[in-house]
């Protein structure tokens, strides 16, 4: 497959692994922020190729994992209403709310449908004018422009039964929160798809203010190994900066059209992240002139939610302070088929990935 096979070339990868082994002069801990990176690292068995003194820890970049229980509870509350169709990305279905999940509500008769984009949800709204169609907007800068485009389209066509329940978030404030939280890392493997939209410049504050290296990485094994090598070199040369490894997709400025769409439709707001609490200006809410698509304004719901099982350490895992192996619940009573914490739910969650791929659990 073009643009894939080249980056999975075994010789190239073995060479990179050798270069990494030759370059290490101390211990290194890097955080892969993005859940897509976590999944790729374990799917390709990357830790097996790294020397013992290079450690990778997972960050808060799995959108499902950081979505609060309150959001799931709200979605469930809406799903129980008459003449409501919930449209969601597939990963969200199994996330546990306080007492139920969308998957369980679907089995009990709620109309919950899996879509691949907001535009699919808009189609469902056109075809079901007598129902309220609620799209669960979730994801970072990667999916937010798609939701923004959907809202603009809904406005243009004046579709009155389409609504958004937004849990969209942006990445940099969470990265800052992690650093301030005292996580002990030597650099970030920065999210490549987020940077495709935002440009690599949004990470500049990290070396400037916190003296930590950043490499914007692609998602194939050669991308990841090359990014790790670049970070090791930055550490060795004591020269933290933002570098782009994923240069076939990422530029300094990013996708200006997508950025414009996002800022036209959304404005920043303070939102809770699972495991972090409220992070200022890290969420995206609809601007005043698009407010009529906000389901929480149209039909407010009140929910009473509980935080996760007190033994669950998802919060600490998402902040890079613990690994799934440190959790008492992991693979004991918390499994992908019956997740207690959010990191076990999504295929990009750290616990789920460990459970599925790691040789020594």
């Amino acid at each position, binding site marked *: *497959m073009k643009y*894939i096979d080249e980056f*999975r*070339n*075994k010789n190239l*990868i*073995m060479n990179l*692994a050798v270069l990494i082994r030759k370059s290490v002069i101390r211990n290194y801990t890097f955080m892969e922020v993005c859940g*897509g990176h976590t999944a790729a690292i*374990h*799917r*390709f*068995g*990357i*830790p*097996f*190729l790294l020397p013992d003194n290079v450690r990778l820890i997972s960050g808060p970049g799995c*959108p*499902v994992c950081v979505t609060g229980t309150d959001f799931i509870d709200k979605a469930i509350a809406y799903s129980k209403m008459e003449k409501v169709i919930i449209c969601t*990305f*597939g*990963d*969200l*279905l*199994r996330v546990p709310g306080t007492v139920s999940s969308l998957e369980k509500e679907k089995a009990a008769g709620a109309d919950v*449908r*899996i879509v*691949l984009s907001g535009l*699919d949800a808009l*189609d469902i709204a056109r075809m079901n004018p007598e129902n309220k169609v609620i799209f669960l907007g*979730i*994801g*970072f800068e*990667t*999916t937010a422009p798609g939701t923004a485009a959907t809202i603009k389209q809904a406005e243009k066509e004046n579709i009155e039964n389409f609504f958004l329940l937004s849990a969209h978030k942006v990445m940099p404030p969470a990265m800052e929160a992690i650093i301030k939280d005292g996580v002990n890392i030597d650099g970030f493997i920065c999210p490549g*798809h987020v940077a495709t939209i935002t440009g690599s410049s949004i990470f500049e504050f990290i070396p400037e203010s916190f003296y930590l290296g950043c490499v914007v990485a692609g998602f194939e*094994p*050669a991308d990841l190994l090359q990014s790790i090598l670049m970070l090791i070199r930055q550490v060795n040369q004591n020269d933290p900066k933002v570098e782009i490894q994923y240069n076939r997709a990422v530029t300094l400025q990013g996708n200006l059209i997508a950025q414009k769409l996002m800022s036209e439709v959304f404005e920043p707001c303070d939102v809770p992240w699972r495991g972090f609490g409220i992070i200022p200006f890290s969420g995206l809410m609809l601007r005043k002139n698009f407010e009529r698509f906000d389901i929480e304004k149209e039909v407010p719901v009140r929910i009473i939610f509980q935080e996760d099982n007190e033994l669950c350490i998802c919060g600490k895992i998402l902040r890079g302070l613990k690994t799934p192996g440190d959790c008492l619940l992991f693979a004991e009573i918390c*499994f*992908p*088929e019956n997740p207690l914490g959010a990191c076990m739910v*999504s*295929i*990009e969650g750290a616990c789920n990935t460990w*459970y*599925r*791929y*790691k*040789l020594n659990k």
Partner: protein
Amino acid sequence: MNDFISLNQGSGGKLTHELIEQVFVGRFGMVKPLTDSAILKDTRCTLAFTTDSYVVDPLFFPGGNIGKLAVCGTVNDLAVSGAEPMYIAVSFIIEEGFPVNELVVIAESMAEEALKAGVRIVTGDTKVVEKGKCDKLFITTSGTGILNPDLEHISIARQVKTGDKLIINGPVGNHAIAVLGARDSLSFTSSVTSDCASLNHLIRNVTQNCNEIHFMRDLTRGGLATVLNELAAMIGGGIVIEEASVPVDEPVKGLCEILGFDPFYLANEGKVIIVVGAGEEKRVLDVMRSDPLGKYSEIIGEIIPDKKKLVVLNTSVGGQRILDMPSGLQFPRIC
């Protein structure tokens, strides 16, 4: 007969008879008079007996339909147990309003597949339920066949030992992607066709011409990963798989990349994994590759000693990880 199935056609009376006569009896070559049981003679031997229900949505997909699937699935379950598939019983649950012409097409492909596989559909049942009480059409097939006495060890993997090689008869994941692509709900279409096929001739070819066949299993729901984990548990040992050796068609690979699926977990309907004693694998591979349904056969791994009963995957890039049982359905990912 009307164009659409009505509840009256499930009444058991004249209209039911007319439906069975006009749609099924002739096509399946059933012997009249139709009785409550098919009476099968000359079976003083060990029998394999299996059953399966088919509820695939949509009923028609590139490469097959629910009827073809129902015959192939039952034939394959028998064949991989070391039996020669012989007789099939079929049961239809039809939703009121179902178009008769579609039922005819489905019956025809069942008859065609049965003829190809050399099995006979000998008995059956038809029920019609009210609209909304079932999704268009469900089919249950049961099948029986005579077990080859030399192959009694096959289904329980009794002879599998360290060093045995694993062979697969072609690329994985095509059925799942074909069905998913045919659904309206996910907005993509693809050129992928289902691998739905009866494997009994291929399997007979292998068992008659090769020695040291230690285990066979068809890969259906849960895909290759599930069967490998079941096998590891059964033998109390480990399995190592070379990712680069497992055939996956390019369009399947591409769609898996986009949707976040793993081809190792995707359903197949015409794939079998065969475990052969070390030294015999080349011969088995040659025999398999000479069959149209085994043209793309590959040796993908081997049995290793491992008390933890893990399936280990040597990734195509030189890494290593486990290949675990899937938990629940795979959902398309967010980004």
